[in-house]
């Protein structure tokens, strides 16, 4: 009995230590973000005189409109403008999200339910494309978008989503295959079209899988640095990730409490999303994986 008790407390101690180690960087970020600038270099775990000054600096309220044109020069103030960057990121998320979910679902339905010659081969090609990394395509897609005059707009960042992604197509196809065919067959006997079956039967039944696809997509867009770095050129078009990278790259004159405040503000929305949809998240990851 006592040995078992010992075992149990060892496990608890290990779990607590591991959990703390994983969360500590975030707590430290929070603590530094509330420190006044003169306390930033001190190793105190908590701020002595907590202040929201750093947040005031990065939130972008009352800042000069960075999009304002002075003569023909844009104003590049170098300040982090949370509200503007969040708006830009949200525009990309919103424009791409519907396309990603709907297009992936349509193609997935085609691969799961529509029988046609060559389906196996096409699906195998689709799976194989998952191996091709974005850096390989970076140069030619840049050339194409440059030819289209899309550099410096959000279009390269959301239009491709409307073609779905091989990964999401695979994920949704697997889910569709798990739904009994009889449901659609009886609906078709009653005169329901293919599209009707897809729209009125499959999609409503697939909400959990669609939620996983949507969540992963939001995270991917929120996280993406390379895409915005390649396609966006002006500070008033920056996304949150690119804006933070820009702020950090001039960190010679940016105090760390501002960097931490900006980081906190970037993490906050996805953290709330995670807490609200924790089950969907963990189930989705258990079946698929995230972040490469």
């Amino acid at each position, binding site marked *: 009995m006592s040995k078992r008790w010992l075992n149990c407390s060892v496990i608890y101690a290990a779990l*607590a230590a591991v959990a703390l180690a*994983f969360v500590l960087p975030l707590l430290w970020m929070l603590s530094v973000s509330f420190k006044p600038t003169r306390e930033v270099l001190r190793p105190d775990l908590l701020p002595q005189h907590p202040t929201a000054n750093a947040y005031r600096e990065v939130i972008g309220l009352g800042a000069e409109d960075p999009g304002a044109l002075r003569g023909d020069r844009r104003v590049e103030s170098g300040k982090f403008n949370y509200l503007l960057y969040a708006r830009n990121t949200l525009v990309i998320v919103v424009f791409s999200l519907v396309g990603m979910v709907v297009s992936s679902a349509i193609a997935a339905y085609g691969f799961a339910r*529509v029988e*046609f010659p*060559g389906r196996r081969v096409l699906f195998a090609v689709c799976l194989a494309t998952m191996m091709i990394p974005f850096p390989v395509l970076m140069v030619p897609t840049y050339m194409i978008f440059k030819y289209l005059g899309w550099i410096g707009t959000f279009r390269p960042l959301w239009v491709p989503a409307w073609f779905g992604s091989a990964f999401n197509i695979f994920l949704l196809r697997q889910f569709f295959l798990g739904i009994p065919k009889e449901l659609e067959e009886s609906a078709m006997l009653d005169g329901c079209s293919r599209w009707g079956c897809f729209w009125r039967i499959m999609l409503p039944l697939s909400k959990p899988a669609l939620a996983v696809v949507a969540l992963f997509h939001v995270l991917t867009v929120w996280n993406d*640095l390379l895409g915005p770095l390649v396609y966006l050129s002006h500070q008033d078009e920056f996304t949150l990730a690119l804006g933070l990278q820009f702020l950090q790259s001039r960190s010679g004159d940016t105090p760390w409490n501002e*960097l931490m405040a900006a980081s906190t503000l970037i993490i906050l929305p996805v953290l709330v999303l*995670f807490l609200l949809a924790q089950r969907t998240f963990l189930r989705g990851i258990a079946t698929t994986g995230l972040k490469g």
Partner: protein
Amino acid sequence: MRSGPQSLLTGLLWTAPWWLGFLLLLAGPMALSLYISFCDYPLLQPPVFVGGANYAQLAGDPVFHKAIANTIVYAALAIPIGTAFAVLLAVLLNQRVRGQALFRACVFVPTIVPLVAAGVIWMWLLNPEYGLLNTGLRAAGMTNPPLWLESPRWAMASLILVSLWFLGSPIMIYLAGLQEIPEELYEAATLDGASAGRRFWHVTLPGLSPVILFNVVVGIIAAWQVFALPYVMWRTRPGPDRATYFYTMYLFDNAFNYLKMGYASAMAWVQLLIILGLTALVFVVSRRAVHYRGA
């Protein structure tokens, strides 16, 4: 079942989003990139065909060699260390104790942190003078703690350390894998007198091996794309002795800083061949080690 041209048309209509994207955003660009990789193309002037010159130049480019070597070292260290760490943590988080969900959430939360933010946070944690880690090490009596990001010897170690912070998603995959291992196997092993260590080695590891293979393949593909973290953490100075200058960073610099589009395209094709080759290698090597139940 219907077959023939009509069903082909229906199938192509349904799968149109995918194959249109495949042609326009993948096959087309890749063909373009293959052609450009045989050209001198400084972006502002039209491409000039130069044959295999870019590939020949890559073979003798010391920075390219350094970037490849760094990427291999990173993959060779981060993937095994990360896998061992993730499997052990998954077993730990699989223990049925109170608060299990909270512990799991804590380990998972860093995974949703955008890489740029993670880079910023860790730069400050690992700051040699003011960082939390070295403050702690000094308090523990270490007089000369490592310089971390600023030392050629420790820069790679720092990056691997940060990569461990992102193990939440492999851990969750291993946790799901652990549920798949039948309880009877553990019971039988216990009856045969196997210790906890032997049960882990002979039941848990073989049971997890397909999932481990999956994570290793994903890890290899990801390692050749490592970009955001080192880009953020070492951008202002390109890293001590280029110790953390990776393949994708050099590709990016060639394309968008030096405007050598042809050279960058050659790098992209070499990268693709390396990834395909390594993945094939993992599958061949693992054919013996991976245990598929019922196969």
